[in-house]
């Protein structure tokens, strides 16, 4: 009897030790946190991210969960404010006791949360802020999915240079005067130097600028006919609108935010079949299959909110689930981090290039594909496969 009690005590200690060390896991559930932009002007990103997590979790749970444990997503709103991101993650860790983190808001927001992530060795997949500041220096538990703006612009300009460059090509750049704009310019700079083309004009503008009439007039004056458009959403649309007014014949490279439906709706009336480069698919069988899946797991309103951010977050949670699954029943944060670090050629069913975190930066999804908008139909067609640049 005494021996039996000792054995039972030892078994209970052994079976609960891991869970005591790593919150967020029970026999039936794994809690995954999501710090997200659910309010404010950028909340269309947050809504899309949230839908991606929801669809991935529903699909995984329907297939039996992660070794029998169902995934529960707990979302906290940060309104795109870094200080609130820190508060949100504090709440997720201390009150909700999450096991890992999938949604991480913007670059400044991830950086604000980084001390908490490191302190708790929180397995974290960053899918919406593939900024070098996030993966350099590398944090042991942080894994980043996504390409750089620099590569995305280089890829588009390379495509234009090799396939559709106008005679007497003059390249021009318009970009924000911040880190994001700097990354755009780095890709542009690499392209014009490597291709030996005429660099007509580079213009910077402040975030929030609405009127680009003077900037576009400068482009026209400089004879620009290949434009690297670093504006986003309404800004990008206003640049194209001014170009249309001045009857400019342009080949246009754009930021990947311009493949989202709200951006397309704003820019398409200008009539330019612009290019984008993205690290997720925008069309084709993978997206058709994803949208079918979405209709099964999400409401009509949520399906309407789907954009590229949905795809990247879906892929991120699937990769996280794969790593957790490889840990078996003894699921710990340390094991999950180790398995994520070993992840190689994880198949995303064509939504992105296969994911591999087995590199010093723990960075994957750097490959981009180039797409072209059909402005009349508001659809994209792939011009290239995913490739590293």
């Amino acid at each position, binding site marked *: 009897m005494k021996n039996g009690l000792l054995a039972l005590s030892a078994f209970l200690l052994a079976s609960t030790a891991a869970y005591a060390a790593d919150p967020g896991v029970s026999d039936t559930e794994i809690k995954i946190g999501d710090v997200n932009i659910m309010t404010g002007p950028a909340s269309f990103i947050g809504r899309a991210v949230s839908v991606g997590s929801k669809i991935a979790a529903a699909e995984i749970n329907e297939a039996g969960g992660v070794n029998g444990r169902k995934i529960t997503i707990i979302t906290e709103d940060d309104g795109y404010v870094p200080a609130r991101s820190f508060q949100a993650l504090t709440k997720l860790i201390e009150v909700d006791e999450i096991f890992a983190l999938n949604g991480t808001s913007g670059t400044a927001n991830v950086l604000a949360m980084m001390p908490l992530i490191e302190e708790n060795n929180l397995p974290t997949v960053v899918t919406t802020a593939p900024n070098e500041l996030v993966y350099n220096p590398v944090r042991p538990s942080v894994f980043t999915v996504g390409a750089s703006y620099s590569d995305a612009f280089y890829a588009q300009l390379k495509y234009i240079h090799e396939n559709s460059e106008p005679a007497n090509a003059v390249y021009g750049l318009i970009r924000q005067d911040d880190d994001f704009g700097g990354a755009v310019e780095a890709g542009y700079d690499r392209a014009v130097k490597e291709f030996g083309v005429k660099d007509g004009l580079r213009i910077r503008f402040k975030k929030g600028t609405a*009127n680009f009439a003077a900037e576009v007039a400068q482009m026209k004056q400089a004879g620009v006919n290949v434009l690297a458009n670093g504006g986003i959403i309404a800004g990008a*649309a206003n640049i194209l609108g001014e170009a249309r007014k001045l009857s400019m014949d342009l080949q246009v490279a754009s930021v990947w935010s311009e493949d989202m439906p709200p951006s397309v709706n704003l820019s398409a*009336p200008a009539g330019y079949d612009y290019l984008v480069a993205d690290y997720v698919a925008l069309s084709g069988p993978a997206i058709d299959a994803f949208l079918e899946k979405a209709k099964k797991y999400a409401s009509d309103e949520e399906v309407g909110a789907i954009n590229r951010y949905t795809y990247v977050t879906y892929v991120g949670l699937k990769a996280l689930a794969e790593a957790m699954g490889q840990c078996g029943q003894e699921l710990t944060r340390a094991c999950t981090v180790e398995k994520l670090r070993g992840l190689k050629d994880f198949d995303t069913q064509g939504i992105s290039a296969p994911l591999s975190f087995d590199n010093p930066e723990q960075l994957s999804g750097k490959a981009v594909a180039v797409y072209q908008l059909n402005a009349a139909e508001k659809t994209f067609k792939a011009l290239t496969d995913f490739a590293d640049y």
Partner: protein
Amino acid sequence: MDFLLLLLASGLVSGAAYGLIAMGFALIFKSTGVVNFAQGELVMLTAYISFTLYSTFDLSFFPLMLVTIPISMAIGLALERLFIRPMLGEPIFAIVMVTVGLAVVLRGITIMIWGPDPFNFNAGIPTEVVELGGVPFYPAQLYLIGALAVLTAAGWAFLRFSRMGIAMRAVAANETAALLVGISVSRIHAIAWMLSAAIASIAGVLFAANFKLAPDLWFQGLRSFPAVILGGMDSVIGSAVAGLVIGVIENLFQGYVGQGLREISGFIVIVIVLMVRPFGLFGSRDIERV
């Protein structure tokens, strides 16, 4: 097409937007002494309301404005009655802080109702490019310049010749004296808010027709503030003219000097002008009689 002409034309367009928004600021300040920090939000809210009317009833521009303006005036009146009137007699600073709070509330309400997505909103104005003197314009740009011209002329005539306008000037000059001669100061305050909201709606609709409708439209209120300072806080007409001045200067700086000078060029002019005329180009000089 001449580069200078292009810059001047587009400067007039952005300046007209600044001027219209600035007029709304100046009208309330002139009548009540309050800087309404919710003016930009009023511009945004009325533009969104107009967008809903347009989407629902598919109206062309003038019928759309005939419906939008009265609704906007009602909103202006409601804001004055609910939030400003109860503050009468309180320090100006407290009233200004109420407008700051109101701004945040209006921003939140707008996103709650219409969501964060930006919209194309042509307000029933054609979108084909037209040329005037060899310079291309979108019709919405000409409507913007035209609206500023009409409202400036109407504003001048209203303040100069109408009983209400003269009463408004009297209140602005000396509120106590105006009260003593039988002018209803509270009524003048309410009318100022209504007219300011009407101007805000015209500014908002035409700004959105030119530069898209998005939840950051409120920020144009702050961007137009230099025009109010330059024209004179209490000069409705001066604010309109100053808007044009700043719009043109910004575009010329961007076109000929470039690289981010657009934003600071307007402020450079303001600093210089205020050093010479602290009350703005058209503002009233404060005179203290001993």
